[in-house]
């Protein structure tokens, strides 16, 4: 089986091709900006170096969030259009699970969501969920233990580690999502919608 993996939800951009359980191309750089300009040339290079064509891909794994709203959409649009056009399944993944994948112990992955809020998700060494991905005010979350994050916090965090094969194995047989229904998992409404809900409650 030939897989394409895309994660553009965090400052860490990951593009990979996995053929018969082996990584034939991996771009994994924490260089943040310009994902919209960089992503397609990287994907093009991934195919070239792996000596496969888009038409050879059997399945796309794509991170659907949480994280940077724009970042999520950039990678997801590519995955969505590719899965639709090539008529292949797409498997949505959590950015927090990806960040936690390289650890052999329980960790909580964090993304700074500003104003004291975080996107948080806890996973054990086999990527079973300990604390479901959530948008939460950190000081009220009761979260403790080992934290991993690309962002800086006032407490100790560890650099996220990626174990691509572990993630793929865990989700290889997940139910695929129809490309039309493959959408971001923001875990957060827009400010306009939040305000609207508040107004409706009052």
């Amino acid at each position, binding site marked *: 089986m030939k897989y394409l993996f895309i994660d553009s939800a965090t400052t860490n951009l990951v593009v990979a091709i996995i053929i018969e359980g082996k990584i034939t191309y991996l771009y994994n750089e924490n260089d943040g900006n310009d994902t919209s300009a960089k992503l397609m*040339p990287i994907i*093009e290079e991934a195919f070239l170096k792996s000596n496969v064509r888009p038409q050879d891909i059997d399945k796309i794994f794509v991170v659907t969030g949480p994280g940077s709203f724009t970042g999520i959409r950039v990678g997801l*649009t590519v995955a969505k259009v590719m899965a*639709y056009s090539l008529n292949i399944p797409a498997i949505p993944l959590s950015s927090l699970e990806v960040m936690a994948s390289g650890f052999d112990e329980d960790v909580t992955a964090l993304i700074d969501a500003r104003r004291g809020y975080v996107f948080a998700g806890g996973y054990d060494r086999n990527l079973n969920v300990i604390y479901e991905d959530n948008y939460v005010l950190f000081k009220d979350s009761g979260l403790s233990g080992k934290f991993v994050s690309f962002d800086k916090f006032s407490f100790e965090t560890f650099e996220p580690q990626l174990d691509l094969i572990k993630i793929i194995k865990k989700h290889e047989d997940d139910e695929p999502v129809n490309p039309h229904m493959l959408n*971001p998992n923001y875990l957060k409404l*827009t400010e306009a919608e939040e305000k609207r809900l508040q107004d409706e409650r009052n």
Partner: protein
Amino acid sequence: MYILGIESSCDETSLSIIKDGCIEVSTVVLSQMDTHAYYGGVVPEIASRMHVENITIVIEEVLKKANMTMDDIDAIAVTYGPGLIGSLLIGLMAAKTLAFIYNKPLIPVHHIAGHIYANNLVKQLEFPLIALVVSGGHTELVYMKEDYSFKILGGTLDDAVGEAYDKVARVIGLPYPGGPNVDKLAAIGKDTYDLPLPLNDDSYNFSFSGLKSAVINLVHNEKQRGNEIIKENLATSFQNRVIEILTKKTIRALKEYGVNNLIVAGGVAANKGLRSSLKEACKKENINLTIPEIKYCTDNGAMIGVAGYYAYAKGLKADLSLNAKATMELK
């Protein structure tokens, strides 16, 4: 030659297949207007979210409607700016993905070039021409010597004309989108309110924020005096000033540049008052006027497919690193 045109710069996800730069094979427009109406204007983050939800559905529809597959498409044209960056990125990433998978040329199109070329669906553009571009984001007079050559003669110094319409609509209590509602009301009112003719000078620039403020102050002052505002008369008075200055500067540009062809483009080109004022002035001055059908005045993929054809003929091509730009000049 078949071009797939992709437009997502604001709140419409629209794709179109255009043959030879002038024949519309199929167009799909998914408008988010009803959603944004609740908020009184386009909410950029909501717009971006809806674009990503809709993009593959629109791709499927436009091909189905044309009874074509991506293999029948020769090139992909996409709006890469100006516009809302989050919205632009969805169309742009979709275009780049399709160009990559199917190995098709990618053509970058300026949104305003698209609006101008919408006229090519009505009648082949004749040069030289002057284009009056009027929309929610733009107010520009453009001189074109030949295909895909643009010289900006002047533009708005502050609010775009459509923006001023939306704000005035809000002040007099009309629902979003303001432009069509003010236009409707203006048709039945009388020009009774004393409002200034904005930026009535020798330049080709426009300014609508002063006129907008004059309307706001007028409403405020009348309220303080306990006088009722006659909405339709205020709409007529406001619209007459807008139309007068747009018509006046456009006709002057045509004369100064010795140009006989005028085209009008952008959402505000749907304004009935503006259409009839320009028609009358052009008739008097013996100028050929082209205004697109109302459905081609608002944002759509067809205009991008048409402009893309002429851009491609000029040798414009982009690689997969093409990025979206919120602001950029028409060159």
